[in-house]
């Protein structure tokens, strides 16, 4: 699953595949900022499906009680794999749940880039200055499939997808706005696209040249220092691979 990226340098915390487990993490991170009195807040993202989990409710409740500076950003795109919003919840969206927990909440048009920008800007200010959590529900639509192994035309009409993609496309809307302001044009766009394409192909080529991770990577970072049982397991695996080298790919370092 391509969701486990994280970067300590960029303050981007690794999340887990189990949906919405990052919500209590965000509350905990906000708690640590509160303890250290940092001029910072946490923001965490989840979907309409994630708002049904236990972690969502407990996390929101905790953040309200603890007055933690965290922004809960819910992307309500109407679909949780194949579950439409009407089968997910019967409340008036997710924004009313925030109100139920005593959290200032706002609903924004998720396809309007400027609206989202303003809302998050204000939310951050509020979270830090007033030390309060904020819930933002962004209403949008999942135009693509859930994942590469999903074909959403199986459970929703293709023309619905087309309608959203053509008519409500947020990228198109934003583009219209910046074009009207004279900051963008077709020519700039084509230059930009070819630029990006070049960068991408360079990145892909560089990535393809990188060596596959060695056997040692299987055992590293489980703990800070590998304990004896893991060292033993690693040694026995290496021995096995060396003995049967022809059964395993030769381009992987042992």
């Amino acid at each position, binding site marked *: 699953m391509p969701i486990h990226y*994280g970067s300590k340098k960029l303050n981007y915390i690794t999340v887990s595949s189990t949906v919405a*487990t990052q919500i209590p*993490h965000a509350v905990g991170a906000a*708690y640590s900022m509160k303890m250290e009195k940092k001029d910072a807040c946490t923001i965490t993202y989840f979907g309409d499906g994630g708002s049904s989990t236990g*972690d969502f409710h*407990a996390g929101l409740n*905790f953040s309200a009680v603890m007055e933690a500076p965290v922004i809960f950003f819910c992307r309500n795109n109407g679909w949780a794999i194949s579950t439409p919003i009407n089968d997910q919840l019967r409340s008036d969206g997710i924004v009313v749940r925030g109100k139920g927990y005593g959290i200032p909440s706002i609903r924004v048009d998720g396809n309007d880039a400027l609206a989202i920008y303003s809302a998050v800007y204000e939310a951050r200010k509020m979270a830090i200055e007033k030390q309060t959590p904020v819930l933002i529900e962004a209403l949008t639509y999942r135009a693509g499939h859930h994942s590469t192994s999903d074909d959403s035309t199986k459970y929703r009409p293709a023309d619905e997808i087309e309608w959203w993609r053509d008519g409500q496309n947020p990228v198109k809307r934003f583009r219209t706005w910046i074009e009207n302001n004279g900051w963008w044009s077709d020519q700039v766009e084509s230059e930009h696209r070819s630029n990006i394409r070049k960068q991408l192909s360079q990145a892909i080529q560089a990535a393809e040249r990188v060596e596959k991770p060695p056997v040692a990577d299987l055992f590293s970072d489980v703990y800070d220092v590998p*304990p004896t049982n893991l060292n033993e397991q690693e040694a026995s695996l290496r021995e096995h691979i060396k003995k049967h080298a022809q059964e395993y790919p030769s381009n992987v370092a042992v």
Partner: protein
Amino acid sequence: KVRVAKRRHSRSRKPEFAPQSNRLQTKTKPNKTTSPLLLRPLTNRYINLTTFSPFISVSPHYHFNKTKWLRSSIQSELSPLLTPINPTPDPFSRKVGFVMVRSDAAKININTRIGSSRPHHFVTNAVATKPDASSPPSTASKSGHEVLLFDALKEGLEEEMDRDARVCVMGEDVGHYGGSYKVTKGLAPKFGDLRVLDTPIAENAFTGMGIGAAMMGLRPIIEGMNMGFLLLAFNQISNNCGMLHYTSGGQFKIPVVIRGPGGVGRQLGAEHSQRLESYFQSIPGIQMVACSTPYNAKGLMKAAIRSDNPVILFEHVLLYNLKETIPDEEYVLNLEEAEMVRPGEHVTILTYSRMRYHVMQAAKTLVNKGYDPEVIDIRSLKPFDLHTIGNSIKKTHRVLIVEECMRTGGIGASLTAAINENFQDYLDAPIVCLSSQDVPTPYAGTLEEWTVVQPPQIVAAVEQLCQ
């Protein structure tokens, strides 16, 4: 062999059992007395059961106060201040000792010899005291202070919180209430409500909170009011706590300590008598330790807090009131080391937490019967200290595992597999593992007692193993 029939008549007497090597004892090997009166009848009765009467209606409670017995038998096992008898062992004499709690480590001898006329057919060399050569420098010989186990945990916690401002505690009722077992008492007024955080009732959420805070650099201690409640946090513990260091490529570390009381208590019911070490042992990325004495509780608490890995510290509901003298100076124990409780030659008994005390009680009986058990408190449940265990097996060639977990999938099951895998050549007999049955813990007191491994079972198992 001991003539049990005699013992039955001597119920009012307080026969002496051979002393156990106690790490806390000073270099002179005093003969420890057992807790008088209250302890004897039960053991007598059970010895009768196993050796003479195949059919007996057992009512272990009928003529003594079980609660008092349980408490004092555990106390007598580890109180280093128990009156030592005359250091030269005299197996044929009987002495009466009293359990006394003193604030200093000086020996006060208030024994009276009731009489040595009653013949005891002890095997002489089995009763001889054993110098505890493998014990670390004794703690009772220098200055020390007496604490109860929950106090020792609190001391460890407080010292670490003083030492590192990033250490914080979160859990239900840990703040001004002081924790359900008073482990965090007095910490909230001292460190503030934010550092000793009372949480609403959602274990998965506050465990997740702790993990998130840890990834940002704090060092939280997450308390489960009872270990059983941490089952609700299983998702966060297994999917996140154990994994995020790995899935983030080492970028984010999760130095949390998850602790709480577990194990079978006194009629707490099935849901509050869980042995979670069985369920957690498979999770990669975590470490598990179990404390059993005030000394190792404090040491393990400090070590767990200082560790950069997530550590689960298993405490036991019935051990919080154990009293012991621990050193004044600071000490930290090794998280991965087992503790040699009693060196011996005949059989290795591996145990942890509360079962340690049942084993030591059985050891007394065994010594009188002529056996010399080696008792190891494994302490580190993940990973196992196979070095200490292996050395012991190479010496004794017989292994008995005594645990409180259920038969299926418990710590004993894993330990049996690990020992078989690594020390097969050194074993003279198959490993015997005594564990609880695969049943939820009953509420009825008598049934609950039968679900936990009792000393007579241990004695019987050793006898069988040594045949």
